[in-house]
């Protein structure tokens, strides 16, 4: 919205490294990735399977801790937070959307959507209203009391998006949100993401989907755990990635 807000840095990573396992089994999933995302910015992360996209997103979202390097969310260094504080950061500042929709099968859609605000201890009347509003925005008003097993994949992902935004985060982390959807539903999800965030929420999105990536303000291209230099806002398709990127 405003210029100041737009200029504010939401996410900043510097020289992020992640090594899984130890000794002989050690896998270097990330080998130094630095990225700055400003408020309202839409950054797509692309690269071949196994290049470390998910790992990068997990670190940015405070789901896992880096082996080396720093992640700053809203000016706070995640390394310095204990589990409780990190939980609060996730609950208040970050929203998550995944390829498999990750709704709790035991809760209804509206309960699933309300979960982040419920966990924050907001009174029932308020979270209920917010969740219903969120459901309306993603077109699920008629599915509020259904369980995840009773609705379609596209609907599930829309519920997941509503859940990711219900607490008005500054950063939305999306890992292949359209990976399990057909193209029509994929497009719908993209539209929703763009309209619902409408420049106020920064999006960090990993994808194999060319269309999705091309909608981003900026693209981070990765390979073997490192970033490839790339021209701003342009997706250059390296020939060897052709297979993965077609979908």
């Amino acid at each position, binding site marked *: 919205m405003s210029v100041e807000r737009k200029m504010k840095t939401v996410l900043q990573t510097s020289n992020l490294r992640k090594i899984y396992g130890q000794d002989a089994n050690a896998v270097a999933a990330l080998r130094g990735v630095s990225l700055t995302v400003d408020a309202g910015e839409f950054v797509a992360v692309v690269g071949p399977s196994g290049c470390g996209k998910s790992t990068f997103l997990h670190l940015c979202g405070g*789901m896992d801790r880096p082996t080396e390097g720093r992640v700053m969310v809203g000016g706070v260094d995640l390394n310095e937070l204990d589990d*409780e504080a990190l939980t609060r950061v996730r609950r208040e500042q970050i929203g998550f959307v995944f*390829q498999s929709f990750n709704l*709790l099968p*035991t809760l209804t859609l509206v309960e699933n959507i309300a979960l982040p605000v*419920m966990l924050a201890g907001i009174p029932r009347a308020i979270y209920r209203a917010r969740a219903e509003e969120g459901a309306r925005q993603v077109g699920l008003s008629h599915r509020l009391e259904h*369980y995840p*097993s009773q609705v379609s994949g596209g609907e599930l992902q829309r519920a997941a998006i509503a859940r990711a935004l219900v607490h008005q985060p500054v950063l939305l982390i999306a890992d292949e949100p359209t990976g399990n959807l057909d193209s029509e539903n994929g497009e719908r999800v993209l539209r929703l993401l763009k309209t619902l965030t409408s420049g106020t929420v920064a999006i960090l999105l990993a994808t194999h989907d060319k269309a999705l990536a091309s909608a981003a303000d900026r693209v981070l291209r990765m390979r073997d755990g490192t970033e490839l230099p790339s021209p701003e806002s342009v997706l250059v398709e390296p020939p060897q990635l052709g297979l993965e990127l077609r979908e």
Partner: protein
Amino acid sequence: MNLFSKFIVRAVFRDPVRSVVTIAGLTLGVAVVVAIRLANVSSVQGFETALEVVAGKTSLEIVGAGVGVPETQLAELGWLRQYGRVSPVIDRTAQIETLDGSVSLLRVLGVDVLRDQPFREYRLLRFSEGDQGSSPQELLAALLAPTSVVLTERFASRHGVKLESPVRLRIGDTAHPMVVRGLLLDEGPARVIDGHLAVLDIATAQWLFDRLGWLDRVEVQLFVPDGIDIAEQEIAARLPEGLRIQRPAQRGRQVERMLAAFHFNLTALSYIALVVGLFLVYNTVAVSVISRRSEVGVLRSLGARRSLILGFFLGEAAVMAVLGAVLGTPAGWLLAQGTVRLTSTTVNTLYVTSSATVPQLGFEDWLLSGLIAVPLSLIAAAIPAAEAARVTPLAAVRDADHQVVYRDFPRKPAAAASLFFGLGAWMSTLEAVDGLPLFGLGAALAVVCGAAALVPILLEFVRRFGRETLTSWCGVEGLLAHANLSAAVARLAVSVAALVISLAMLAAIAIMIGSFRETVTYWVGQTLQADLFVATADRAPVGSTATISTAVERDIRTHPAVVAVDGFRGFDLPYGPEGDLIILGAGDFGVLLDYGGLAFKVPADGAAAMRAAVGRDAVVVSESFALKHEVGVGEVVSLDTPKGPRQFCVVAIYYDYSSDRGLVVMDRATFARHFGRQRPTGLTLYLDPDANAEEVRTELLAAIGPDRRIFIRTNATLRAEVLRIFDSTFAITYALEAIAIIVAILGVAATLLTLVLERRRELAILRLVGAGREQIRRMVVVEAAMLGLLSQGTGLVVGLVLSLILIYVINVQSFGWTIQFHLPLGFLAQSTILITVTAALAGLYPARVAAQIVGERVR
């Protein structure tokens, strides 16, 4: 086999907590069953061994009616020598004080050594160092002096007793100084009752035990042992009125019959823990089937036959059962040590004095444990295993994971529940079988099964209607807990059922005991009217025979504050075709009517009926006697007297909770007419209303002097004593029940843990969207507490029904008591809180595990 070890054995290790809990549960279950069986066996065996010891090579014995064989009749029995050797015997128990200050209970045998020699193997005696073996003459010489006693070497070495050591034999109210004149070698009879045997000359024994002119029995060792049947018949035909012939083993059988109901109920109770253990087996196998559905699918698609799958899961149950049996048998033996201590108080107080020791474990004990644990476990596992065998290869490809099944109303359980409850209602109306409440227990079992079938219905109910409530009680954690439980209804049903059952049993037993206690308290208040009670032992079976000496009685009667004295005499008498041991009592009806307060069941004016009975051949009987032997007021009972069977008219039935064997009480004068004058075994004193009972007691004790061993209790202490005995009788019940509940709560904790581990992914999602560790922990604890509360709520209702069966069917059939129903509300409220808290605590471990889950990969 290789596949089995890969598929099942590895799975057992993959979820070690659940496996350990199940095996622990089975172990405890088997242990409790073994313990109670050993304890029961040992209390009967304690008596039977003692019996064997003193019976020796006796083939037949002649006994009198209740009071024994008059010595004068021995002369008329000269013809018995045609059949074999004859030996008169005094057979009693006494306490012995040794120099080391200890007091022990001994079996005391008074024998005519010369005649008794062939009967018992105490040839091997040692009179002095280096002297091996001895003749009967020597033994006789040793026993000749009236202060002589022969003890066993084992007992002597334990208590530092030597030849010529002084000891004191406490018999009745008197302690007699004696000298040890011989030691029986540690073998033969001396050995079996752990050395607790003393031998006296028969004349000394008669004198010490106040049995002058009486014999306890006359033993016969036949010349032709094979002719026992004919001999028994011939002798029976020739015996004078009032004497009976029987085989020694019959006494053991009588005791066994007497204890049968008590033991039967304990045994039934002991199986509860095992049943709960079996629920754990069912649960474990069921969970193992559910969590490996797709693995089973893969195996099936790769060509594994149904029978193989079935075998796998049955094998898992069998492995656990064998482990449970192997661990449970020795654990049961250990437990039996404690059990014997708990039950021997009851047995000794209410039935017979016997020193019970737990028998060593034999091969058959292990075998029996295996035979109980393995088939029952297989049955428990059969249902889920069969389900596993029905898994189609499709399950491998279809993602059965995380599929929440929302089912219709559980019709099958509902049908089963109503069937069981109907069966229970029907069985509770059926009569006892041979004095044992088989159908009563059947009814209880049916109700328990019905309750188990009810659990899925209740869980479904909670699933449908509980979310709002739980959310408003516990916030978001409540909502999540409800959601989690709802998804796992099928899985939880079994462990919750196990908990419900043990809690229902606890509630039922608490209500039953509470009611019983209330009834007894009321009865004691009604009946115990006397101010002081005089007895010779601090605690003894009801029919104890130690008498109060004339000197003591005189001292008491002459005290100015004593207004009236009722001398009570009671002893065991075989009654009816089975020779059940009842208690025949004699009291002073006049005193009892003027001062006492019997509570009559029938007729309404029992006192008038009792007054009319004085001077006639009439008796009042206890409720349990009337119920067990089906005798009503106005009917006639036939009792053996020294002059042969005599008819007595029953004039009233009164409430009595002192013994379930049944009491028949007659006026002193009537008693003396039939059984001869006998010294009383207890005195009941009524004091001047102005006198202070406590002071009179002190004065009486001072007057009697410190040399007499006499116990005088005030009304208040006796009442307290009655309730103390009551409570110790039921201590074992609570102990057994506590074990069952521990097992059940472990089961719930294990199930929760399994659910947590299976839900790793969902927990990770929760953490991702902002759930803190604390919230996750609270959620699991809320789940546990909710299960506890739900189980306790159901348990209370089912327990109420069970308690009605216990009170009005099982108790009446096995003991013949009227128990007034009474709800121990305080206890039930306390236990509800306790159970909920305990369940919540049991949830702490799974909660901790759940809270640790973070780094799970979420895609």
